[in-house]
């Protein structure tokens, strides 16, 4: 089995046309710049991932919503929201929210980190396994938007002026940043690098 790169061919990143490679040349069909691999893929992925690592702390410890009832403010973090759900007798929803907003972002950061490290240390591991792991991380990542959507709906319906209002807290901003950063991390990771390991290819372009 031969990679296109080894045959001196390059797949256009935008329109998938297979072209012969020349430095700084563009795709004859869509005019995109042709490169064998995404430029600086690993560096970019690390950068997004590490930034997400920082933001995940305020996302979990700062209040994601604040309930204001008759002037009294009750802040809720992601975890305390989940606990309230369990106590109010809806463990199913509690599990969904817990998985989508705590497990998924954390697993995504750890999983991507593991893939990157195993790639850079050239650990001996099935490429297919690593790829399936990445595919899963990539697919599951979008579901962490769930909590933000839920908050937007709750904020909209629970609005009784002085009586009862819910507003998003600073944790929501941090959480939104984590979601975007992990999505960008997955997007800037070039999976073809995994198979490049078989040959001692350079990763520069």
């Amino acid at each position: 089995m031969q990679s296109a790169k080894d045959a001196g061919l390059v797949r256009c990143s935008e329109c998938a046309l297979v072209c012969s490679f020349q430095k700084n040349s563009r795709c004859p069909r869509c005019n995109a710049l042709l490169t064998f691999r995404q430029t600086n893929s690993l560096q970019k992925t690390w950068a997004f991932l590490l930034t997400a690592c920082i933001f995940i702390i305020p996302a979990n410890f700062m209040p994601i919503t604040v309930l204001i009832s008759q002037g009294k403010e009750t802040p809720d973090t992601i975890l305390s929201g989940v606990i309230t759900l369990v106590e109010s007798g809806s463990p199913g929803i509690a599990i969904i929210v817990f998985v989508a907003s705590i497990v998924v972002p954390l697993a995504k950061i750890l999983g991507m980190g593991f893939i990157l490290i195993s790639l850079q240390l050239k650990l001996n591991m099935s490429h297919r396994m690593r790829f399936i792991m990445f595919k899963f991380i990539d697919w599951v990542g979008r579901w962490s938007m769930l909590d933000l959507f839920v908050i937007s709906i709750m904020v909209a319906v629970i609005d009784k002026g002085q009586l009862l209002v819910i507003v998003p807290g600073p944790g929501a901003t941090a959480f939104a940043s984590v979601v975007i950063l992990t999505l960008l991390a997955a997007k800037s990771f070039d999976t073809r690098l995994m198979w490049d390991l078989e040959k001692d290819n350079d990763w520069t372009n």
Partner: protein
Amino acid sequence: MAMNKYNETLVACEHCDLLQVKQRLQLGQIATCPRCGSRLYFNSSCSPMSMLALTLTALILLFPANLYPLLSMTMVGSTETASLSQATLKIFHEGNYFVAFLIFFCSTIAPFLMLLSLCCASFVISFNLQTRWLKQLLKWVDYLTHWSMLEVYLVSFLVALIKLVDLADIELGVGLVCFCLLMIINSLVLSYYDSNSYWQRVPIDAVS
């Protein structure tokens, strides 16, 4: 500018770069990569004309899905209704522009622009029009599908619903029906959209 030689009979896997010769497929058949198992190309049973119809329907549904109430809620004697656009506007009013924009983008703008681009591209291809915009439209479709999160929104709505059931009397609205339909058509569009055959309709500049 030097233009590259190209070879339309070859296909390289997006995810593992495996090089292969393109085979003719029967209608509805899918070619998968033998090395990593991802989808290489397929012969969609949905013509650009049907795609045009699907995307148009979705675009029309998008308006009631956004503007009509998803639910109305009776609590402490008064009734509140909430539509998708209202839900986003509220967060804008609270002053959290970043979160509001992200929600607005993933639930409304990205699906809308993605369907609009695909609708225009299908129109151009169905009627064999010549336009330099086709490339750009197809690129937009590709970028925006990642950020279009209708299915996540629907599940979020169900989660919010179960949270609210205990607090108040809830009545589901017309907007929800439209939103469900929109989501179904959107997933049909995504599974039938054959980017390869669309790209093949983009004329290639002569190699100089």
